[in-house]
């Protein structure tokens, strides 16, 4: 026997070699030969507010469609008019990511999904594209239609965001995936070419065609009221299903002077310097918000750092003023962070309820303590060849009050003074008869009349033509650094200049004497780089050395305000950086460097990898930024008083590409199977029943 084996083997030796070469060693399951996974982590998902649902969802089992790559209008036409193999999954380039195209797709009923292929290298940007409406946050703003102010209609006449497509606020019946992974995109293109691409004369190909399954089934439906109710029911009955969760994160804020509850805070003593720290897109896992969020945020951080370097003379000055630096969260979705702060101040438990027993605790603060309000909105595109050119917006309504008007004036003058003195910064007053652009300041003005200014890079309409879109990234603000601190880059210089001016103005307000302050350019550049290009930059890894490694991706920071327990990595890191900038080093070792409670005036932070172990004492802390709507008992969801935005929950989002056979083939196969079964049944039955005759009784096989 062995001989035979060996000879056979020798015989087939070369075939073996051939096969061993041919056969793929990994994943032998036939599955892997059938399906090819496509990047599926950037799906468009559903959000809800009191009245509507927005975003996309797939069916429970996913949507399947024949892949059709759309390079030009003709391809779309082909799909709608000639394409016989519906439904289709359109693979479009960003140029086609417009509400018209999507609407047409939805109405045609021939489209079961859309894939947006964003290629880094050959990126064809649409002229202007913003997912937002023409008037971002109009409904929850100060000048909303229900308000009696004469400015309520202003935005509709002169939209702040003319590029707004409101794509973000539309609801689609099919899933939309964003793909920026090279290999995935190439796969799609290649398989499309090999199997699906129509002939020259638009002749459709025949089965088997390459299809795509997009799976992003959203749990929630209808609106916040419904999905929150269902969530509570599900939780009360059996294990919870997260039909939807309220958008929530944390406001991060700190004061230059410590606010101790032991000494009373005088009225109108606190200058709030605010910026918002969140942006949004319709897709998961991508929300760069370079201009809409990061520009203002970094300016604020830089200004805070610059100002705090002079804390000694600030502390010893007699002027009873204080500066509160605040980074607001979730402003994109109806001023969540600012409205929450205002709500708490009104209830008198901002930052925390007053504890009787504790001696060392931060003092209460309410609206009357606010002196004035300086907000840094989008300042990224105020860069001119010679320097920086920004605009100061004020609220015409509150300025009617002469006292407020004067305060505002002085504030503006101060800012302009330092702008001029700095030489290459120009602060220009925006049209005094125009309302404020979208800004957190509005949440305060809804409740209280205070002087304030919103600093932006635009006079009338946004300079930022990609407001709240995936293209609002470093390119949009012309940021050029390839790694930390490059001198050639102009953008970080611009930001630092603005920060410097702001810092000087604040210094004057705090101390009464004037001084020109320069912000640390290295710092701004690092921050900009970390936020806009590489979240796992050296600076962040140093500050966040205690955070789990997987929080750091080498992509831009995701600026989307997520839900509780969502991705809060950028919040945490911003918090730490902020604390370091607005804090002083104290000599405590790691074990000592801990804070008992959030109420304490000073919080302690330990940075193990900053010059081998630094303990920082700072007033910076975070308070929850979740819309009051979810805290007020039986709040009326339709009353557009507070933001009611929630995010749907989902299991997973995945996309894969595969080949689908023709129906005829399948039917044939089944018939064949049945035939084989029946035939064999008949045959065996026959042989059984006639066994005696078939196997003649002559030789009954003797037992072995």
């Amino acid at each position, binding site marked *: 026997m062995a001989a035979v084996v060996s000879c056979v083997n020798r015989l087939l030796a070369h075939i073996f070699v051939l*096969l061993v070469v041919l*056969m793929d060693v990994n994943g*032998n*399951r*036939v599955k892997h*030969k059938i399906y090819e996974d496509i990047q599926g982590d950037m799906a468009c998902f559903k959000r809800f507010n009191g009245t509507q649902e927005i975003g996309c969802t797939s069916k*429970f089992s996913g949507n399947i469609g024949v892949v059709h790559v759309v390079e030009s209008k003709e391809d779309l036409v082909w799909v709608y008019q000639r394409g016989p193999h519906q439904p289709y999954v359109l693979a479009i380039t960003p140029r086609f990511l417009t509400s018209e195209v999507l609407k047409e797709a939805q109405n045609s009923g021939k489209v079961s999904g859309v894939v947006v292929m964003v290629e880094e290298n050959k990126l064809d940007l649409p002229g202007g594209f913003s997912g937002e409406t023409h008037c971002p946050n109009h409904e929850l703003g100060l000048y909303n239609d229900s308000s009696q102010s004469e400015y309520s209609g202003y935005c509709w006449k002169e939209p702040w965001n003319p590029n707004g497509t409101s794509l973000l606020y539309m609801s689609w019946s099919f899933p939309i995936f964003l793909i920026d992974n090279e290999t995935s995109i190439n796969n799609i293109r290649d398989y499309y070419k090999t199997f699906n691409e129509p002939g020259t004369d638009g002749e459709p190909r025949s089965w088997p065609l390459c299809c795509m399954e997009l799976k992003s089934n959203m749990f929630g439906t209808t609106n916040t009221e419904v999905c929150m109710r269902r969530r509570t029911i599900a939780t009360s009955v*059996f294990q919870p299903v997260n039909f939807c969760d309220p958008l929530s994160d944390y406001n991060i804020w700190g004061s230059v002077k410590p606010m101790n509850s032991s000494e009373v805070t005088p009225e109108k003593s606190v200058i709030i310097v605010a910026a918002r720290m969140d942006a949004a897109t319709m897709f998961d896992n991508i929300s760069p918000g370079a201009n809409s969020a990061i520009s203002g945020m970094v300016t604020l951080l830089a200004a805070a750092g610059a100002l705090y370097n002079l804390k000694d003379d600030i502390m010893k000055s007699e002027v009873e003023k204080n500066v509160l630096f605040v980074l607001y969260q979730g402003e994109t979705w109806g001023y969540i962070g600012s409205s929450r702060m205002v709500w708490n101040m009104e209830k008198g438990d901002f930052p925390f309820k007053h504890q009787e027993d504790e001696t060392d605790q931060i003092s209460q603060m309410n609206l009357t303590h606010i002196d004035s309000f300086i907000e840094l909105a989008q300042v990224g595109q105020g860069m001119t060849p010679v320097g920086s050119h920004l605009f100061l917006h004020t609220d015409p309504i509150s300025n009617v009050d002469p006292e407020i008007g004067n305060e505002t004036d002085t504030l503006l003058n101060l800012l302009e003074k330092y702008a001029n003195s700095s030489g290459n910064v120009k602060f220009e007053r925006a049209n005094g008869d125009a309302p404020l652009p979208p800004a957190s300041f509005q949440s305060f003005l809804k409740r209280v009349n205070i002087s304030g200014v919103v600093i932006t890079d635009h006079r009338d309409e946004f300079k930022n033509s990609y407001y709240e879109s995936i293209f609002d990234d470093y390119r949009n603000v012309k940021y050029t650094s390839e790694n930390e601190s490059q001198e050639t880059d102009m953008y970080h210089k611009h930001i630092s200049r603005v920060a410097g001016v702001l810092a000087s103005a604040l210094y004057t307000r705090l101390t009464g004497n004037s001084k020109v302050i320069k912000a640390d350019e290295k710092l701004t550049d690092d921050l900009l780089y970390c936020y806009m290009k590489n979240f796992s930059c050296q600076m962040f890894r140093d500050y966040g050395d205690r955070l789990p490694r997987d929080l750091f991706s080498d992509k831009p920071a995701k600026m989307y305000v997520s839900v509780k327990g969502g991705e809060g990595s950028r919040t945490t890191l911003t918090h730490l950086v902020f604390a370091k900038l607005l804090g002083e080093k104290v000599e405590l070792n790691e074990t000592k460097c801990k804070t008992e409670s959030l109420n304490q005036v000073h919080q302690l932070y330990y940075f193990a990898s900053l010059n081998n172990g630094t303990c920082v004492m700072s007033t910076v802390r975070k308070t929850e930024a979740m819309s009051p709507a979810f805290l007020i008992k039986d709040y009326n969801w339709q009353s557009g008083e507070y933001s009611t935005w929630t995010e749907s929950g989902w299991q997973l989002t995945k996309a894969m590409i595969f080949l689908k056979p023709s129906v005829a083939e399948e039917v044939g196969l089944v018939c064949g199977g049945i035939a084989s079964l029946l035939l064999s049944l008949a045959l065996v039955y026959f042989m059984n029943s006639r066994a005696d005759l078939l196997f003649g009784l002559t030789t009954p096989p003797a037992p072995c």
Partner: protein
Amino acid sequence: MDGHVNIDRDDKVVAVEDSVNKGVKKKRRSQNQEDASGGQPPTQSIQPGAQNDGGVALDTNAAFSNDHVQENGPQGVVRRHQRGGGGAEQEPAGSAPPARRGTTQETRQSRHPPGEWEEVEEEEEELKYGAQHVIKLFIPVSLCMLVVVATVSSVTFYTEKGTYLLYTPFHEESQSIGDKVYDALRNALILLGVVVALTIVLIILYKKRCYKIIHGWLLMSSLLLLFIFTIIYMMELLRGYNLGMDWITVSICVWNFGVMGMVSIHWHGPLRLQQAYLIFIASLMSLMFIKYLPEYTLWMVLAVISIWDLVAVLSPKGPLRILVETAQERNEPIFPALIYSYTRMTQMLLEMEQWRAKLVHREKEIPQGGGMQKMDMWLEMEMLRLIPFHKNNARICLVNYYQLNIQPLKLDEITKIDAMEKDKILPERGVKLGLGDFIFYSVLVGKASSYGDWNTTIACFIAILIGLCLTLIMLAIFKKALPALPISITFGLIFYFSTSLLVVPFTEQLASEQVYI
């Protein structure tokens, strides 16, 4: 599932008498004919047995051995003699069973096989007889496994981890295999401790004759299983397919399902239905295990339990032994309901009642000399004809009963109170496979299938069936109580690991290259 078709209940006794009186050969013939009738339906009385029993009462002696008498013990023999006497007298009083016996005897005469084939044929007939019972065990076991595997591979709930049993405090979080195994071992030992404790409690209860407690307990547990676990199962099924359902419908369905289950298990119901319920319960139970035991712990538990099983049954002072002894000296069945199907039991009871009725109203016919105790003798021997007593089977039951008892939740223990109260003297008979065995077999196969590789699943399935086969064969050879788990589970484990580690890479390579062997 006592595979005891009524006819061989009669014939076996007849057989016994024969063997007592006339010796082996005739008795063997009796068996031939008993399966001749067992083999082919026509005989009305065989019908229920033939189709009913999903599983088997493998009547060991009848199946594989030729000597009944020795291990029937003196008392048995004595009774037989009485019976022989009594039977002879009472034959004319044409009550149903004697008549039946008569007919069977006739058939036996008529079907006397031709001379020289006799040996071979008897051989194979015996074999066949045993094989039948083995198959009758295969079917329900496979069904139970099928339910589990289907559920596991279609509903994710039972495979995703997170919540664990109270009995397994160590959750195998760490990455290193070593720690996991260590955790698993500790979990398994804890579980084993619980099992031992419960067994001892049960022994005590049993010794103290607190049947009420035991049965109340069993009733409770079956209630829990039938209602709550069914609800959970239903919920997960619906959730798996994302189907909405309202409370009204659900409550009606569950109420009906549960009550019907209780009725058919604890009271009278169609045998098929009852078997279906028992299978369902077993699979629910094993699904719970698959869900709530950490991965390595599950394998470890399987191993530990089957070892412990071995010890407890075979060691001279094993808890089972004690239970068996008491059961035997009391000469009473051990919670018949713990067994896959004990409906025969109820049926016997009914027959017993018939007998009693008959006897009572036939009292006058009984020769005056005896009076009451004569009547008792009558009753007793009638019973004996009805259900000859086999130590083995009683013990097997015990083994399986014990198997059942190891469930931490003790949910699969179903019993029949009136069965106990009506007749203490009713002995259990036939090899019964405990629900416990069902559960553990299904756990193994279900767990294997939860990794989505069907080769492994099939391998485990076959390995377990073979193990079962071997167990039964050994039962026939050694004629002593044998634990039903060890062989099967060992095979199962061996084949699970070997297949998933060695075979699957190979076969998948072959399959994807389309190479056939």
